[in-house]
């Protein structure tokens, strides 16, 4: 029994979610290998070799894998997968994009977004926006799984000394091409890795008002998130959406500002350790999950909070 973990990365830096996915592999048991598929990604391979518990790193360095196009990387992963009992990827937009394609190439079901490992073939995963937790058992010869980072504590990024081996695949399938990317730039911590998250909803009224949250966040060393309503209204970009169909976060402290607490939003943050809700409507459902609720106008509360913390 051995597990292949597909590394999350941008060709230069190993993504933090990989460490949580390796933790899931550790819970399954057996050898852990990591596949880095990219272009000019040698540094990522070196970083993966340092991860605690990883014994081998496979590096597929090819221009065709530069942007994780699923038409190109899925056949490579499916080919490598034949040597393993389990293939794991982080449930990031990359993992969600290529893994089901890998599963179908292998003619097995995929198990999406596991939050715990019960045994080598049995896993737990949330369904219905987290309103139910299913325990599922797989009889697939190769188990193809995506891992929700918040379910597993990251393993150490260092302490390992895996061997690094080059591998190659069919390369460019000639069906798709990368055109462009618009990446949000921010000096704040990454939403899914931050210890504190401050999120704003429709109650913020417009994008400009998010400056109150940014300055509070900077004082707390926090990341800033948003509800779907705030993203749909164009206040902030899509990559800030927290929820069932956005990012899943579980920080030490989550501060929901002007967010009502729809089930789809709760699905993305209710595993946070401490939840604070700031809302002028004392009946808002967000108060049902908040450890500390403060009823009032956010435009008065948030600046005062920034002064006092």
């Amino acid at each position: 029994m051995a597990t292949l973990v597909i590394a999350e990365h941008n060709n230069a830096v190993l993504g933090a979610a990989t460490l949580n996915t390796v933790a899931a592999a550790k819970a399954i048991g057996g050898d852990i290998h990591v596949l880095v598929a990219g272009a000019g990604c040698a540094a990522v391979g070196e970083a993966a070799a340092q991860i605690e518990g990883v014994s081998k790193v496979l590096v597929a360095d090819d221009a065709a894998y530069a942007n994780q196009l699923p038409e190109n990387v899925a056949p490579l992963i499916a080919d490598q997968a034949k040597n393993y009992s389990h293939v794991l990827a982080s449930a990031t937009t990359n993992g969600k994009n290529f893994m089901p394609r890998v599963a179908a190439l292998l003619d097995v079901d995929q198990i999406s977004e596991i939050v715990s490992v019960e045994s080598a073939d049995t896993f737990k995963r949330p369904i219905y926006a987290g309103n139910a937790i299913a325990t599922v058992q797989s009889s697939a010869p190769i188990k193809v799984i995506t891992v929700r980072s918040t379910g597993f504590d990251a393993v150490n990024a260092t302490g390992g000394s895996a061997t690094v081996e080059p591998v190659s695949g069919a390369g460019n399938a000639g069906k798709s091409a990368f055109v462009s990317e618009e990446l949000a730039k921010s000096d704040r911590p990454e939403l899914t890795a931050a210890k504190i998250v401050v999120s704003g909803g429709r109650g913020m009224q417009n994008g400009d008002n998010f400056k109150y949250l940014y300055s509070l966040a900077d004082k707390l060393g926090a990341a800033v998130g948003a509800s779907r309503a705030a993203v749909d209204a164009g206040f902030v970009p899509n990559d800030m959406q927290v929820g069932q169909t956005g990012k899943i976060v579980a920080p030490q402290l989550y501060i929901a500002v002007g967010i009502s607490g729809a089930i789809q939003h709760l699905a993305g943050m209710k595993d946070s350790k401490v939840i604070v809700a700031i809302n002028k409507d004392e009946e808002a459902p967000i108060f049902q999950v908040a450890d500390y609720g403060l009823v009032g106008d956010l435009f008065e509360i948030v600046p005062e909070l920034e002064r006092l913390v």
Partner: protein
Amino acid sequence: MKVLVAVKRVVDYNVKVRVKADNSGVDLANVKMSMNPFCEIAVEEAVRLKEKGVASEIVVVSIGPTAAQEQLRTALALGADRAILVESNEELNSLAVAKLLKAVVDKEQPQLIILGKQAIDSDNNQTGQMLGALTGYPQGTFASKVEVAGDKLNVTREIDGGLQTVALNLPAIVTTDLRLNEPRYASLPNIMKAKKKPLETATPDALGVSTTSTVKTLKVEAPAARSAGVKVKSVAELVEKLKNEAKVI
């Protein structure tokens, strides 16, 4: 070009489901069912492509119980031309659904296939990508913009870091994200007209597809409950509690 849209009948997004006492699943008796919200966005996108003269025909397909005809009729009322129901009373996994859709694709030969990114019941987020593997077609998942440019499809995708645009050869598969469009409501005259549009039925057997699965659900439980905390009176009290009680700042 011909566009195929896959729509799923699911529990309405406003319903907070409850787990059955015997832990065999969630209780769907007498619960409102609707078209999966991401599938509504898929139908809307196809209708817009037809209004622009890009799409010539829109075929909607659903796999599910007889009652899924309701969701197909809704799609017809929104502007689809005809519907196919693959009848199955089992809870199928995404791979089985993708195989059934592949059989429909083989028959219909669409140039573009639009699906939702995720069914809000299973939260799988798999079917479009699996259909991509089975057909060999490229995929533009989590789409927030779709443009046909000659023999290519440009798809802007919502990714963790922001947005990414890819160019796909046609035929291609698109899965919708929330920002792709805002679905319209069906008008009463269109709901009436939809009753006369063709709806054909098929079965997995007739399509020659085996729907066996490698995953079985052992039990379904309610999540750990989170109890409501306290309401604080002032910002000062909140800060005091966060520092001394919760110790998170």
